[in-house]
């Protein structure tokens, strides 16, 4: 019996050859029903070979587009190939595969489901300007969405078909475009968001930066990205065409 939903796991990867094999293998073991798509963002190492060796489909961008660029390409793939829902997962193993079902379950109540770090699980803490940025973002998003959102920059998020269509239309390739701008625009287009508490694992590829200078720049850029996204003219979400909501598009 086929699973109730066709699910795609979307993994943007840029020179992740060292870790992507183990991450994919674990995903395959934990969520065998979901299809895997690696979006290779112009890698120069063996990312593509390793991804293909572990049986994932690989979408190869001809040159580096950035996370937002890789993700939009992946969302187009998901939408055009008739997937009901897609979840984005980092290649570095930061996102625990056992939490995927929980994040996907959020789609029962909303169009977009975010796996959030600060919602009670895990021990992820920040302070200083980075914390102010988090407070600013979560305040603005909680107001806009009407539900409590505490970790909008989390890259562990799932989308249903309606959100996939929205993403294919608006998913900026710039810094924070893949998190702040795309989410705010989706909310303002009338899509609903829910957050699911998850615990993150430590990144395999080094610690996030704690330099106060960088944190301050991050604060300014978050605020700017927010300002741009919140003052842009609202465009209502596109309606899904009837024919593609069923599974006939896929063999």
């Amino acid at each position, binding site marked *: 019996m086929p699973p109730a939903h066709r699910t795609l796991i979307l993994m943007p990867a840029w020179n992740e050859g060292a*870790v992507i*094999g183990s991450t994919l293998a*674990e995903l395959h073991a934990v969520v065998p029903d979901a299809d895997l798509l690696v979006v290779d963002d112009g890698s120069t190492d063996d990312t593509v*070979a*390793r991804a*293909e060796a572990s049986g994932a489909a*690989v979408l190869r961008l001809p040159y580096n587009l950035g996370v937002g660029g890789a993700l939009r*390409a992946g969302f*187009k793939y998901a939408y*055009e190939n008739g997937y009901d829902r897609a979840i984005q997962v980092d290649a570095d193993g930061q996102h625990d595969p056992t939490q995927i079902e929980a994040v996907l379950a959020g789609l029962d109540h909303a169009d977009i489901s975010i796996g959030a770090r600060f919602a009670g699980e895990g021990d992820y803490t920040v302070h200083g300007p980075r914390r102010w940025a988090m407070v600013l973002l979560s305040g603005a998003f909680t107001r806009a969405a009407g539900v409590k959102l505490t970790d909008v920059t989390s890259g562990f998020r799932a989308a249903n078909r309606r959100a996939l269509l929205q993403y294919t239309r608006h998913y900026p390739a710039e810094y924070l475009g893949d998190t702040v701008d795309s989410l705010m625009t989706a909310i303002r287009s009338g899509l609903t968001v829910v957050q699911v508490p998850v615990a993150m694992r430590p990144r395999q590829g080094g610690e996030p930066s704690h330099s106060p200078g960088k944190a301050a720049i991050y604060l300014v850029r978050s605020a700017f990205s927010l300002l741009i996204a919140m003052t842009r003219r609202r465009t209502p979400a596109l309606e899904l065409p009837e024919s593609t909501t069923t599974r006939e598009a896929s063999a």
Partner: protein
Amino acid sequence: MITRLVFLAVAVFFGFLLFRLLRAGRVREKYAALWIVVGAAIILLAVWPNLLNNLADWAGVVLPVNLLFFLAIILLLGVSIHLSSELSRLEDETRVLAERVALLSLQVHTLEGGPQTEAPPPEELEPTEHAQEPAAE
């Protein structure tokens, strides 16, 4: 008199350069149109310098040359902004093309039933996945 001739020569030179670029198809007309207008204005000013003085008088600018600088800076600023926006549009367009190329090439390779990498994966890529793990769990 000499300065007027120099200005005239410069204006004519750039006008000619632009015309050649346009003819060779290396500058699109929509970008060249502005420069042709500017070139014409410079020629006009070189031939009748009093034009600038009268204009400055009328606008209440004491030093006519300041009016010239002001207009030139506004113009250059406008052109830079225009070029930035054209560049961004181009980047958006190439992004769409890059996505499409990736999607189509995956589709082709799926239809052909083979992996996209030419060389078969080397032996160490055998599916003993956890052996590849560099860091601790």
